[in-house]
């Protein structure tokens, strides 16, 4: 389990990095934290000709407030997400979700930009981005553009990012800081989620005026659940079970050795129930079958 041969590039600026991307062709991978890429290299699931290491690139490691939300640099680590005060105050959902990623040593190196560009359908960040009405900033040699999270994740490890583009930052909205929920099913601490559910709500006068319910682990990409969002919107006094049932009936997850499709639907119910209840601030009901 050793990485295959590749050519290594260590740019120091975003400009240099995107020029390398433009120049080197399709078999190039970008190394950010490496906590997904290097296992793939070791297992030889990835065989790139070139690796562009962002470790020495300036300006990708900042968290800044903008438009009531946050701009998070692509090289901000999971650990920074977990400990940064601005994240904690403006996007507490993101802070909370960060703690579920891998182990401390993984969080020390893994980055939000790397995770989003990798687009593992079971990963936490893509679901969090959807729940927090996030947007991805992509930079190429030609342009910089923003893509809404809703449009970014296309399929298994596939996104709207072109091969010549780099994820340079992620915008997370701040309006969900009071009512949010996150729950995921892990067999063991640090395992990839079988199902993860992120919920962002805006509640005004005891009524949910905006709701976003995003799930990881139910399809080849993270998905919002419009039916559940609709069920959640309105004057609620704690309808977690109802929303969870709607979510459960909205997906046909693919089964694998970690759980059958039917079982995953049960997990969708359980985790949606918990995340919605957390977002609404109500107690979790203890009886499963709604």
């Amino acid at each position: 389990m050793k990485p295959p041969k590749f050519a290594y590039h260590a740019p120091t600026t975003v400009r240099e990095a995107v020029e390398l991307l433009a120049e080197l062709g399709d078999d190039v991978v970008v190394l950010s934290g490496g906590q997904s890429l290097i296992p793939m290299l070791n297992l030889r699931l990835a065989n790139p000709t070139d690796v562009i290491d962002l470790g020495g690139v300036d300006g990708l490691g900042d968290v800044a407030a903008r438009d009531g939300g946050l701009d998070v640099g692509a090289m901000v680590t999971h650990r920074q997400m977990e400990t940064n005060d601005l994240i904690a105050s403006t996007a507490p959902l993101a802070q909370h979700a960060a703690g579920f990623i891998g182990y401390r040593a993984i969080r020390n190196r893994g980055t939000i930009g790397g995770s989003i560009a990798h687009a593992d359908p079971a990963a936490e960040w893509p679901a969090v981005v959807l729940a927090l009405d996030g947007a991805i900033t992509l930079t190429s040699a030609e342009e910089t553009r923003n893509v809404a999270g809703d449009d970014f994740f296309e399929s298994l490890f596939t996104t709207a990012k072109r091969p010549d583009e780099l994820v340079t930052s992620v915008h997370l909205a701040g309006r969900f800081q009071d009512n949010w929920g996150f729950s995921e099913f892990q067999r063991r601490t640090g395992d990839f989620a079988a199902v993860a559910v992120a919920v962002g709500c805006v509640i005004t006068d005891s009524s949910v005026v905006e709701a976003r319910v995003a799930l990881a682990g139910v399809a080849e990409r993270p998905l919002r659940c419009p039916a559940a969002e609709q069920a959640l919107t309105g004057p609620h006094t704690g309808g977690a079970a109802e929303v969870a049932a709607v979510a459960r009936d909205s997906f046909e997850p693919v089964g694998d050795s970690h759980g059958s499709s039917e079982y995953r639907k049960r997990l969708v119910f359980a985790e949606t129930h918990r995340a919605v209840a957390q977002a609404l601030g109500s107690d979790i009901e203890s009886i499963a079958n709604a």
Partner: protein
Amino acid sequence: MREITVTINGKPTSATVSPRLLLSDFLRQDIGLTGTHVGCEHGYCGSCTVHVDGASTRSCLTLAVQVAGRAVDTVESLAPDGEALHPIQQAFQDCHGLQCGFCTPGLLMSVAELAGTNPECGRAEIREHLAGNICRCTGYHQIVDAVERALVALREAQVDG
């Protein structure tokens, strides 16, 4: 091949490495620090844990070229040869926190990080922090005993010092 300079256990070291060389293999084979153990090479077992700029890092999920200009500390840094064991190591011996010893160096480095960032934590937090270090021998109970004891010893040393 690339030239790198890394500070390893406090000592600046220059080497020429292939870009694909894993930090774990660099430390073990090029530098001769075999205390860092390789158990899975996909980031799950934690045996290869070292510190990079003070933060715990999987050396099997890090390329040697990525640590150019950085400081890497391995288990061999805890107690220099000829000196007494580090309080964490001593607690592991006192509490029987190791058996075959293979996962131990990685665990010690994870505990060293915990001692720096959350020195007052209790058993549940210790377990949470160390969940990424698999031990197949001990059943963990005596490791948690050892970490509790080490954290107390380090706090007392700080007060005394």
